[in-house]
């Protein structure tokens, strides 16, 4: 046990002291926030509005289109009282338009077209729409555009004309304003947990969100630290220290020590980020985000947090040990990287189980995938936040999972030792199996 702690201590201190650790701890949040900020900045860059002429041969559409395209939203959305946030802020549209009406009554269409084409060539105009007289019966219009690749503007325009024509048809059908608003009112769907008191209505939603976050962080941690575990396991092989160490510690002790040491580094880094994020969330975002967001978090039951923690650790360790197993078979980190690809595949597949399990958390399928150690972390978390299974199932899943961690590590240490005895040889899978059996 003392030797185990010696290995853990060395692994932890050496890694935390390394420049890489300090740099990555600071850099990652910076990079992450850039990923959020840069797109936001790019999207907020103002592009010049599109100058659009509307040739309205029906004579009834222009004002509707104008309304639909301008910031003033049609009445339907304004009246939804729940979207308080949206109504207070000006709606940001990605395509803005400056529109003008072209008098279509006095001139023949060809003449108008020629005029407009002329203006487009002179760069006074970016495009024009022609609504033929039979627009309401045929539902067809033409959009002549200098830049037909601008899918975005085309879509905005199409939906605006759509809305405008629907409005106008309703008006034509003598539907009064009141009724029109009533008919277009969006519905609100509240999801409640069966049997839960009505006061706790947001419970499962918040849990679900947090669970999604936990799974995501787990995924990130595995991707980031899996490779580091692999490298750590190979370290003694590459530096040729393994044989010196094995005259002092058992391979299992060494590998466990290294795994735990690296994992503590991972937890340290995650804790630093978590704290930084928490502080940012409370002091920074707290000012921006509405009250309801913040008040929803405390409604998650405490026990769920315990489960989140346990299954996070299980998920992390089960995959980290697979990386360790790969590390025990190979001699260089490059080889390990190639062999690690299938691991990531298993990981991704286990994340897709999210959907079938959340749809029917009580099915036999969900039961089995939440017991199978490689899919258990995600599957069981989904079951816990949707339809919490009986406690024995949760306990059994944890037991199977953590036992698997030990079995894999034991296997890895046997392969490691035999591999070390035959210098510099990478193990094929059958060899690895044979090595695990002998020695």
């Amino acid at each position, binding site marked *: 046990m*003392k*030797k185990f702690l*010696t*290995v853990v201590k*060395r692994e932890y201190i*050496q890694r935390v002291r*390394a420049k890489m650790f300090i740099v990555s701890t600071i850099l990652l949040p910076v990079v992450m926030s850039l990923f959020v900020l840069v797109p936001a900045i790019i999207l907020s860059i103002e592009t010049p509005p599109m100058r659009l002429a509307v040739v309205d041969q029906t004579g009834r559409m222009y004002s509707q289109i104008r309304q639909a395209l301008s910031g003033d939203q049609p009445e339907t959305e304004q009246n939804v009282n729940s979207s308080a946030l949206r109504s207070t802020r000006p709606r940001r549209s990605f395509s803005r338009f400056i529109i003008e009406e072209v008098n279509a009554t006095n001139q023949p269409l060809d003449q108008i077209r020629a005029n407009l084409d002329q203006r487009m060539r002179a760069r006074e105009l970016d495009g024009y729409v022609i609504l033929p007289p039979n627009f309401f019966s045929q539902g067809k219009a033409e959009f002549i555009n200098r830049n037909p690749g601008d899918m975005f503007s085309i879509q905005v325009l199409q939906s605006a004309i759509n809305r405008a024509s629907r409005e106008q048809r309703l008006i034509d059908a003598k539907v009064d304003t009141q009724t029109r608003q009533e008919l277009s009112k969006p519905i609100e769907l509240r999801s409640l947990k069966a049997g839960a008191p009505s006061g706790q209505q947001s419970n499962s939603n918040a849990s679900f969100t947090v669970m999604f976050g936990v799974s995501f962080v787990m995924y990130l941690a595995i991707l980031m630290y899996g490779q580091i575990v692999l490298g750590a396991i190979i*370290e003694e092989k590459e*530096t*040729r*220290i393994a*044989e*010196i*160490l*094995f*005259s*002092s*510690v*058992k391979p299992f002790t060494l590998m466990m020590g290294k795994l735990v040491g690296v994992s503590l580094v991972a937890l340290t880094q995650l804790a630093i980020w978590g704290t930084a994020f928490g502080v940012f969330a409370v002091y920074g975002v707290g000012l921006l985000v509405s009250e309801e967001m913040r008040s929803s978090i405390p409604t998650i039951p405490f026990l769920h947090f315990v489960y989140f923690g346990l299954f996070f650790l299980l998920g992390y360790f089960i995959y980290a040990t697979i990386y360790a197993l790969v590390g025990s078979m190979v001699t260089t980190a490059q080889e390990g990287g190639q062999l690690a690809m299938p691991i990531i595949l298993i990981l991704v597949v286990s994340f897709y189980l999210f959907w079938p399990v959340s749809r029917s958390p009580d099915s036999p399928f969900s039961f089995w995938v939440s017991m199978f150690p490689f899919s258990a972390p995600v599957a069981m978390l989904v079951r816990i936040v949707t339809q919490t299974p009986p406690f024995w199932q949760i306990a059994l899943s944890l037991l199977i999972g953590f036992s698997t961690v030990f079995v894999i590590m034991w296997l890895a240490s046997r392969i490691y*030792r035999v591999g070390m*005895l*035959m*210098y510099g040889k990478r193990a094929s899978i059958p060899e690895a199996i044979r090595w695990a059996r002998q*020695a």
Partner: protein
Amino acid sequence: MAANETTVKLDGVSKSFGEFTAVRDLSLDVRAGRVFGLLGPNGAGKTTTIRMIVNITAPDSGTILLFGRRIDASLQDRIGYLPEERGLYKKMRVADQLRFFAEIKNMRGKQVESKIDEWLARVKLSEWKNRRSMELSKGMQQKIQFITAVIHDPDLLILDEPFSGLDPVNVELLKEIVLDLKRAGKTIIFSTHQMEVAEKICDDICLLNRSQKVFEGSLREIKSSFGRNSVAVRCEGGNGVLDDPALVSKLVRHVDEAQVLLAPGADAQTLLKRLIDSGAVIGKFEMVEPSLNDIFITKVTEPA
């Protein structure tokens, strides 16, 4: 330090890897307070034997006793092992590194620090204490590796090719340390294929070839059992005599003299007479002990 006490005892030990037998039915005694040379050509089974002694692998059959007990993990702390395949943590500072190797042998507390300083001073690397090992030259690294094997003051020290790649000054330095440790009552197993080195520091030797023991005993006994049938000759002319297979079984010409191994039944007097008769001018004619190298080569090439 009782001279007849046995530190390591192997009895009928065999080990094979799949088809390949690395060690076959090996028995040997390593006596306390002596330097025991485990000699043999590459692939003879030296390293496998050592690994079984330090409990890295277990023998397929036979028993190994260390300090009179069956080998187990707790006995490992009394062994210092410098394997042939060795290295250091590249980015770790020398002092941290040595502390780690001491702690992993269950050595704790203040004595660790004093031992680190003491040993660094002894190998003349004190000023490198806080440098990363990747900044050290290969020779310096080798000396640090040597310290990792001795820092916890082991009763049994096992060195596998400890001097390979070192310059003569450092070889001398480490050799002195090894002899000091022997004087302090430690038992040392010294594995090498460099016979000249073994000859200078080993009290007892065991020669392995093709997984088997060829012979075992004290260096003195072995040399005398070979008898004085080796002659160092420096002469001009007389080539015909030295090439006569009835007199000379083996002839090795060095730059200015020749090493002659007498054929069985021939004696030195006859050789000298024949040389004089042939008109050779003799500068040197001296009976010498066979070198360990000669013994080694004779034994290894002998048909089983």
